[in-house]
């Protein structure tokens, strides 16, 4: 067991208050490569971890504006430039009639970008994590809350990490090993 590569240490908590306290402690100790795993979003954890605000809204609005502009331009070009047809005595570029589709294109582009941006930012689509295929994964998607200290962090040491989690009252500390060294 001892020759397996340690990739991190996880401390499991049973309630959100202890988790928040632990997160603040880890943040203040100066760890950068660490994370909290919870079965549901815990209010205030972003602050406790010291996370920067998410850029999601900018992604959504930018994509939406691009979508709306493209739609209006497409309708202008098709109705007034490429093949102008006089319909109902209206101008070729009768923009008020183009508003509904411009709006729908805004929402469509914004929605696609929100989904795509979320997948990229949350690193979904990656199954490569020492947590997968580990019993601890089931615990943190079901009911318990874990603080993971990554072995790649400069401050990481197996004993010091253990001590840090112990200091904040964690009673269930487990070592995470690299997946490729698994026995079973």
């Amino acid at each position, binding site marked *: 067991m001892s020759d397996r590569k340690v990739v991190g240490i996880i401390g499991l908590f049973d309630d959100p208050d202890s988790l928040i306290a632990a997160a603040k402690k880890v943040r203040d100790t100066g760890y950068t490569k660490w994370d909290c795993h919870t079965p*549901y979003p815990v209010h205030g954890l972003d602050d406790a971890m010291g*996370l920067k605000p998410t850029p999601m809204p900018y992604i959504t609005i930018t994509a939406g504006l691009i979508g709306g502009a493209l739609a209006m331009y497409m309708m202008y070009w098709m109705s007034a430039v490429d093949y102008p047809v006089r319909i109902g005595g209206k101008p070729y570029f009768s923009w008020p009639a183009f508003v509904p589709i411009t709006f729908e294109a805004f929402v*469509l582009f914004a929605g696609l970008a929100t989904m795509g941006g979320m997948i990229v930012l949350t690193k979904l689509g990656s199954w490569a994590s020492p947590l997968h295929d580990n019993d601890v994964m089931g615990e943190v998607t079901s009911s318990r809350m874990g603080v993971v200290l990554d072995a790649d962090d400069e401050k990481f040491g197996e004993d010091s990490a253990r001590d840090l989690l112990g200091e904040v009252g964690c009673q269930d500390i487990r070592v995470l090993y690299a997946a490729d060294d698994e026995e079973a």
Partner: protein
Amino acid sequence: MNPPPPDSSTLEEPVVDSSRAAKLQADLRKLDADIQAPMESFPTQRWLGAFGLAQIGAVIFLITFVYTIARGIGVWGNNNPVGWGFAITNFVFWIGIGHAGTLISAILYLLRQKWRTPIARFAEAMTIFAVIVALQFPLVHTGRPWLAAYWLLPLPNANNIWVNFRSPLLWDVFAVSTYALVSIMFWYTGLIPDLAAARDRAQHRVRKLVYGILSLGWKGSNRAWQHYEKAYLLFAGLSTPLVLSVHSVVSFDFATSVIPGWHTTIFPPYFVAGAVFSGFAMVATLIIIMRKYFKLQHVITLDHLDLMNRIVLVTSLMVGYAYMMELFIAWYSGVVFERFAFMNRAMGSYGWAYAIMVTCNVILPQLLWFKKIRRTIKFMYPIVIAVNIGMWFERFVIIMALHRDYLPSSWHDFTPTWVDYGMLIGSFGLFFTLLLLFCRFLPTVAIAEAKMDAPGAQPTGGHHE
């Protein structure tokens, strides 16, 4: 692998009362077990029976669909001047059903209405299946669905001509397809953490693999939750104006014409209210059965049904107001054709449909003023069923305005054929097939959201430091 034994050399006592933490752990695990129980057990005979019935309906739908394509839409009761019959009625009916799902999942989310949590997932699923069913009708009405993309979308074609962007029918194409895509993405986003929970509970290899792939490797990481929660909020923010726009655009199909009764400004708000009305009635119709059958009465309580019934009552009043206002404006306008159209609507060939519409949509829902009726399943159930029927007839009544236009020589009544009835009945079969599959394979209640609202699930002392 076996995790090493827990380290017992802790330096401090836990900072909180351990019994509270133990209760939270028990609550969260119970939520997981209760909500996922239907997914983990073998289908019961009642489910199989219901699924069999739905399959019969779906087969009827398939047969009538293929028959229509093979013989042409002449097999329907449509004629001149009633160029639109059951197909558009069914289309608007199903789209309207879908709207309650978006209202519950997006608008009530933005308004921080916590009571939406247990019903939101189910209502969203209903939205998606209703939109899928609705989309079949314009598709089959094109006669040649495999060519429909050329008529519906601005694609380069041999004639070098483009679609007409000034037509409400084209707006419909964009509105409904955007609505379908955004609803699916919103729903899937909500599902990801729950699929991960299902993956980690799964015992069977195949289940683990399928849920594992679908959950995209979700780890419950807070660095992910942070983006995820904002994305969910943004989806809610996008869906809210979207749902209002979709039914407004659908109503433009009947509002921007010059036919009497089809030239009116009241339609967009009236259609949106009607959609919410019929949608909530459908959610109630289905969820009353679902909660009993899956034993989720403690998750979806009578309080939730009471609140839904109040929304049905409020929207019934809005719809009733619109019916009266239509009649009033027809009279007040002084236009003889307008007056004739509305008198004919209430007393003409389809006066019976108008009577069903008013009874089911305006008169019967008034019973929901009584608390006892709002909170008793056997009383409320017939009412919500009546609303479903009434709202189908509302669209039928509007479309039947076509049978008396300006020119008496072109007047013609509409008589549905067996194909029309088959498609209507079959569409329910298709809808229930999808819904029953959803109930078996996916969590019908948003687990992560239910956990989030569990007592003691959030840290004490406010949301922020």
